[in-house]
């Protein structure tokens, strides 16, 4: 975020209550033109609600929404230049792929020649040539997802809203569509607001991540910032795996991959340097669990009685087993101090 960027969407103390129940307390957020912004948070934290307010499908209880500088808070969805991709695609079952994609342009009364030009572009982009005349029910999940993307893209919206667009697909297909979506967004310079509760998806695709918890924004930042310098226990615990070590009135969070294991007695092995930059503890291994590329080693600490988890890689010199005494050390720069 070095150069000054154009704000595409601005949410100003936006708030949503359903009856007595406050789902989103007043919230501020700016989304820049051309960025891939991800809303990440546990189920029920209000991601969909926030997205629906931007789309106009839900009216905020208070606050303002600006789209490209214009107040759109109470504008109905069909007058907003944003398009949404629904989790279950919401393709019109009685229309062919082509009719589905053309729907928005028809409603906007775009001329037939312009329509033809745009549909051939998006169909080429989403590789749907062969399926033009098919009905949605004759397509696989991944193809349906592509149609949903094409149906939104063809309108050249200022912002594309995606509500867990890949949630219903299997792992392999999700991986390949993630790459397609990301390159599409980058090539066309589109503004994406992407909802997911898959943290890996968020980390690999986003320019910026907004971590939400119970309607509040916990932290906003690049994937790197969110992962390496979480600002709260919630963020530190929600993204990736983490260890928390309690001090008097604050916590230290420490990623399991940053912890090094060593012999307590350092027999035959040169002891790790205990300098001003490192910290060291001892403990007993309670469990070692196989996870494919790594083993997770669970260690019961001698002094505090806490359990710490560390990764063990297969090319590590020493294979640890349950019941062994072990020393742990890490660099102080890898500790993250959390005040909340």
């Amino acid at each position, binding site marked *: 975020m070095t150069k000054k960027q154009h704000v595409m969407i601005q949410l100003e103390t936006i708030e949503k209550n359903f009856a007595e129940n406050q789902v989103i307390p007043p919230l501020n957020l700016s989304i820049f033109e051309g960025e891939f912004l991800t809303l990440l948070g546990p189920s029920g934290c209000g991601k969909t609600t926030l997205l629906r307010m931007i789309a106009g*499908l839900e009216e905020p209880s208070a606050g303002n929404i600006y789209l490209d500088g214009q107040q759109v808070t109470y504008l109905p969805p069909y007058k907003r230049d944003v*398009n949404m991709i629904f989790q279950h695609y919401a393709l019109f*079952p009685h229309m062919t792929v082509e009719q589905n994609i053309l*729907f928005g342009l028809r409603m906007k009364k775009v001329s037939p020649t312009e329509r033809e030009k745009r549909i051939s572009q998006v169909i080429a982009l989403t590789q749907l040539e062969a399926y033009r005349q098919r009905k949605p*029910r004759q397509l696989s999940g991944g193809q349906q997802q592509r149609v949903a993307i094409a149906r939104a893209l063809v309108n050249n919206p200022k912002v594309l809203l995606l509500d867990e667009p890949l949630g219903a697909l299997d792992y392999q297909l999700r991986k390949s569509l993630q790459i397609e979506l990301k390159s599409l967004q980058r090539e066309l310079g589109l503004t994406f607001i992407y909802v997911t509760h898959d943290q890996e998806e968020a980390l690999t695709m986003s320019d910026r991540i907004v971590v939400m918890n119970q309607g509040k924004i916990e932290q906003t930042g690049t994937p790197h910032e969110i992962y390496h310098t979480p600002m709260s226990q919630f963020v530190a615990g929600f993204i990736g795996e983490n260890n928390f070590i309690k001090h008097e009135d604050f916590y230290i969070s420490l990623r399991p991959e940053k912890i090094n294991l060593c012999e307590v007695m350092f027999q035959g092995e040169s002891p790790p340097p205990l300098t001003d930059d490192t910290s060291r503890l001892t403990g007993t291994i309670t469990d070692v669990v196989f996870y494919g590329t790594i083993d997770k080693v669970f260690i019961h600490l001698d002094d505090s009685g806490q359990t710490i988890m560390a990764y063990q890689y297969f090319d590590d010199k020493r294979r640890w087993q349950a019941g062994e005494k072990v020393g742990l050390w890490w660099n102080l720069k890898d500790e993250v101090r959390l005040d909340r």
Partner: protein
Amino acid sequence: MKTWRQSLLLSYSLIILAFLYLPIAVLVLYSFNNTRINAVWTGWTIQWYLSLFSNRHVLDAVSNSLIIAFSSTIISTLLGTMAALALHSCRFRWYTAINSLIYMPILIPEIVMGLSLLVLFAQLNIELGKITLVIAHITFCMSFVVIIISARLEGLSKDLEEAAQDLYANSWQTFRYVTLPLIMPGIIAGALISFTLSIDDFVISFFVAGPNSSTLPLYVYALVKRGISPEINALSTIMIIVTIVMVVISQRLQVNGSNKNNVYK
């Protein structure tokens, strides 16, 4: 062992079917009987069908029935569709109460419905005739239309309407291009059921028909009072065939519609 059980099951089903359809089969058979006396079979003829079509009273009754059936079908389909849409879109406070009130005319004994309509028309000084028949038929046809279309709307995912709105369709366009096409099989099925019910209705019609507005069932009843004739058998056979065709079409529409679109979730 297995074949023994299967044949037992088969014969059991056949007995049930015979029990259900034997009376109708006999009636259809005797409509082709070459004698006025119902009890004896003498040979094949279609003269009863021919004489039906040259009988002025029969033709009057047929035309009355068709006029009433068409009018009440059109009106009850329109009103029923609108009622179902209204109930679907605004889940207001009295939703459940209103919903059960709409089902009520189906459950109330027909004779009570007929009687109460008759009392009402008398109170309002409305002359009995085609108009009163149409109104009476609408009361029960509409309930069926609402039930059938509500079932379809229930299965309609809200996402679809929201997707349409998101794609620049205003409320009317959303209805016109998304909701309406998706509930269309339900509307047609409702109309066919209404038509069938109206053509077949006897009890309620009996109360609210005027002197010159006899429908087919009423005419058949009047004839029966003078003894069962082969003409009645022929007339009944035609009514049975029309009913069966209608019901089959409407069933196919309902089943097809739900298989074809994944509207039902």
